[in-house]
């Protein structure tokens, strides 16, 4: 169980971003997180993945946090999540050797492997960072608007794969504005507004 308890966060004390948020994600569960932009969704995701430290409150996962993190965060702007000097092949294989089936299910071509991040499209790079995160050691996935830049066909392909992973025990927190999408994929959906879960 990946559990965030009573999380408070602010960059500046007069402008709190999260005020007392608690959320628990079980293995095999897919929680949808929606809400207005600027409400703190991504900040909560980054805190749960350990990228940001809460001012107050705690995050526990019951997993060893050394080495490859069992909680992987997928950035909504994937260009910020990759080293611009690395070729795609090196980025993909940073944490594990992806199997062919997963690579193909995500529609990732080997022809991209010798290119740099700026030489493939935004949606292609989004899938590259997803493949990198899907190591067998990943127990929880924080997916921040990961299909927001993808066409409907590719989006359906990716969610077909993620739903299968979820059935096999991966816990997924899907941050999205796409209500019809969350209605299709999520076990339950929570809404965030001005730093609080409704």
């Amino acid at each position: 169980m990946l559990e965030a308890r009573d999380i408070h966060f602010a960059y500046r004390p007069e402008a709190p971003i999260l005020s007392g948020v608690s959320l628990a994600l079980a293995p095999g569960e897919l929680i949808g997180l929606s809400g207005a932009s600027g409400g703190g969704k991504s900040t909560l995701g980054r805190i749960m993945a350990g990228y940001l430290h809460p001012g107050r409150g705690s995050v526990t996962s019951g997993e060893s946090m050394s080495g490859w993190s069992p909680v992987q965060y997928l950035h909504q702007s994937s260009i910020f999540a990759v080293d611009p000097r690395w070729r795609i092949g090196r980025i993909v294989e940073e944490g594990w050797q992806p199997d062919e089936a997963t690579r193909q299910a995500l529609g990732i071509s080997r022809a991209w492997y010798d290119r740099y991040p700026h030489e493939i499209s935004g949606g292609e790079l989004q899938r590259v960072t997803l493949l990198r995160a899907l190591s067998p050691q990943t127990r929880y996935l924080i997916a921040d608007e990961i299909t927001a830049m993808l066409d409907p066909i590719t989006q359906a392909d990716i969610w077909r794969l993620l739903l299968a992973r979820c059935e096999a025990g991966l816990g997924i927190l899907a941050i999205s504005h796409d209500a019809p999408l969350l209605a299709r994929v999520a076990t339950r959906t929570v809404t965030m507004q001005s730093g609080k879960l409704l």
Partner: protein
Amino acid sequence: MLLSVEDFSVSFRRYAGLLQQRLVPALQGLSFSLDRGEVLALVGASGAGKSLLAHALFDILPPNAVTTGQLVIDGSTLDQSNWPDYRGRRMGLVPQSASHLDPLARCGKQLAWAARRSGSTADPQQALARFGLDATAAKAFPHQLSGGMARRMMLAMATIGKPDLIVADEPTSGLDPDNAAVVLGHLHQLADAQKGVLLITHDLAQALPFATRVAILRDGRLVDIEPASAFTGAGAALKSDYARRLWQSMPQNGFLTHA
């Protein structure tokens, strides 16, 4: 005719080995036009070349890109000599990625640069308010804004000079439905004011109520251009098979059972 794209292609020069070069095609033989008063939605799979077209229109392709064909705006063919007169003045770009913002300057300052470049006397506060942003957002550095706020900031920058042509690359990605409707509504208003809007988007459902026509790009080629009204029901009115598959794969429609 505001914008006319004539047999336009983009390819990338790549080295195969040390001395041999080859051209990898990315956009191939694109031809379409955009009238004043129109919102043309450009949709297609990722990697189809949607953003490349936006970057080509503003001459910000990577240095190894090679283009052929012509981009004509208001009767003038865009080239190195007149791009500076159009770019950021008579045509505005809303980029796809927040990495296009200067990470070292406060957003308000970057908005002021955009206003000065276009000779606009518009009130920056108003430009921000139009997209639901306030003075706090102006004081922030780009990394302190949420994804959706950064996108709205880039919209304010692109539209503050009231350009004739607005190219918006995924302007609603990361926005909640209310804010997305505000943004698309504003783009639609610009079209009503006889501007031209090229709306690059993956989100067909969201774009349809605001678009006049929908151009579909696949693997670097234009598949076809459909009137927005043809996307309805099971998609029987759509001319191309690919358009119908896009339509049917949406979560609102068939989703996982198609594609």
